[in-house]
Structures are given as structure tokens and as C-alpha cells.
């Protein structure tokens, strides 16, 4: 991974955020369940999940959100970790064989109190272009550093 600088003047409303695709599998869902200790049977017990309205196992919502947060970190670097806000709704479950596309775009850029405020539309969809998650993300980037020096660029991560 490398870091690159991008000029604020080169970022515009309507710009796409770095899109990624994650291929889910039951093994990946199980790995997440083990990592965070969430063994809700709707995620890990295929026979239980088959009897529910979902008809099969589904990924943890927090796993899907982690993918969105990853995209925001790639786009906005450390500013996402210190000023990020996320508000989303789960529209339909992510199933264990889904290919999940994580995408977003900058909706607006405003200047307030010496910060650039980015408001973004974010979401995830499956291989059938059905929306799994949609919502808003906001992040604030200061226009001056701790020494009061004017900043013209922000860090962006390149995979």
C-alpha cells in the first residue's frame, strides 16, 4: 500500500469513492464470527438459517459496514478515523455466496470553521444490483495543520 497526496481543488462533488468488490463465502462469514465472537445462528448455522425467512445464512451487518469503512479510509485516510460519521440502513441481507460491491460518491463539499466537510452517499449491492445497504457518510478534513499552516492537499491511500 502507498499513500498519495491529492489536491483539495482536484476533489469535486460527484466524484466516485474507491469501489471494491468482496466475494462472500460461508468460510468468510465463519471467520468473521470467530474474530468478533458473534455466533448468531442466522450467520453460521445453515440448517437453522434455512428455516428462517432468509432461507439461508447471511453475513453479519457489521462485516458489511467494515467494508464501507474500509472504502472511506482509503478515500480520506486518518480523517475518517477521527471525524467520520456513518448512518446506514440494511435493505436486504448479504447472502453467503453474494459478490458485494461497495461504492459511494461525494455528494457535497462545504467549508465550515476552517474544515472541508465531505458528505457522501455510500452503499453496497449484490451481483444482481440489488441494494444491500445504503446510507450517508460524512468526514471533516482540516484546512490548516496544528501549526496553523494552510493545507492544500490531503492523503489518500492507494492499494
Amino acid at each position, binding site marked *: 500500500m502507498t499513500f498519495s497526496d491529492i489536491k483539495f481543488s482536484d476533489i469535486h462533488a460527484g466524484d466516485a469513492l474507491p469501489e471494491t468488490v468482496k466475494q462472500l463465502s460461508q468460510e468468510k462469514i465463519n471467520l468473521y464470527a470467530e*474474530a468478533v465472537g*458473534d455466533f448468531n445462528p*442466522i450467520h453460521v448455522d445453515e440448517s437453522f438459517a434455512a428455516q428462517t425467512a432468509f432461507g439461508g445464512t447471511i453475513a453479519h451487518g457489521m462485516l458489511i459496514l467494515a467494508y464501507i469503512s474500509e472504502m472511506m479510509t482509503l478515500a480520506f485516510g486518518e480523517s475518517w*478515523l477521527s471525524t467520520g460519521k456513518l448512518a446506514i440502513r*440494511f435493505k436486504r441481507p448479504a447472502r453467503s455466496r453474494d459478490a458485494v460491491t461497495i461504492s459511494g460518491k461525494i455528494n457535497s463539499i462545504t467549508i465550515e470553521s476552517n474544515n472541508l466537510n465531505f458528505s457522501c452517499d455510500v452503499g453496497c449491492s449484490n451481483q444482481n444490483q440489488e441494494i444491500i445497504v445504503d446510507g450517508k457518510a460524512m468526514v471533516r478534513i482540516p484546512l490548516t495543520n496544528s501549526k496553523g499552516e494552510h493545507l492544500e492537499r490531503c492523503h489518500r491511500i492507494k492499494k
Partner: protein
Amino acid sequence: MIKYDELEVGYKFSPISYELTSSIISKYEEAIEAHSSIGNSIPPLAVAAYAMKAISQSIQLPPGSVHVSQELEFFKPVAVGSHINCQAQITQKTKRAKLNMMVIEINTFDQNKEKVLSGKATLILTDSG
């Protein structure tokens, strides 16, 4: 462990503490296929995920509960090895037909008592009968 039916709006969970060790975070990053680590900072969703784990260990929810919405706000990067303290409260609980809805609000702080994350999770739970 408190049962779902015994939870009331305003219920405050006992304060929860956990350490985000390097082995925990390595496992988490592998599970989410993380490619965006910044220095020693952990993916911010890890703080929320482990808070939800700790909360779920203190309540007995019906199997098959699912997340319907989530709000999160991050206040500062969290370093690997941080000790996190979490306060959580039930702020909504409603029942419609056989579906129960519950909202849990969390606030998390690091070892310096500085807030690192707040959040609001809305869960739908099937009727426990």
C-alpha cells in the same frame, strides 16, 4: 445474563472493558480483508464490533436477531493495544406483531477517558415466544 423480555428502555448495561490486542486485531483484519491500515491505528469498526460482542454476552437475545440500521461516529484513531471502556443503554424497545425492535446506544472511551466512538444500533428480533 439478562433475558430480552426483562430489558426495559433506559436499561444501562454494566460498563464493559476490553483490550484490542494485536492478536485480536490481526484476526479482525484478516476477517474483513483490510487493506487500509494507517500506522498503528485499528479499523474503527473493530471498536464497535467488540463492543457489540461484549453487550451480546450480557443479554440473551432470541436466535436469528438481525441488524436493520446503524449509526456510528468516530472521534479519534484507536491504537492497537488500547483498553476500551464501553457504556451502553437501551433507548428504544417496541413490539409489532411477532417482531421486536430494540435500539442500543453505545459510547466508548480509551484508557485516557477520551471518547473514541459512539453509535446507535437498531436490531429486529423474532418473537422469543
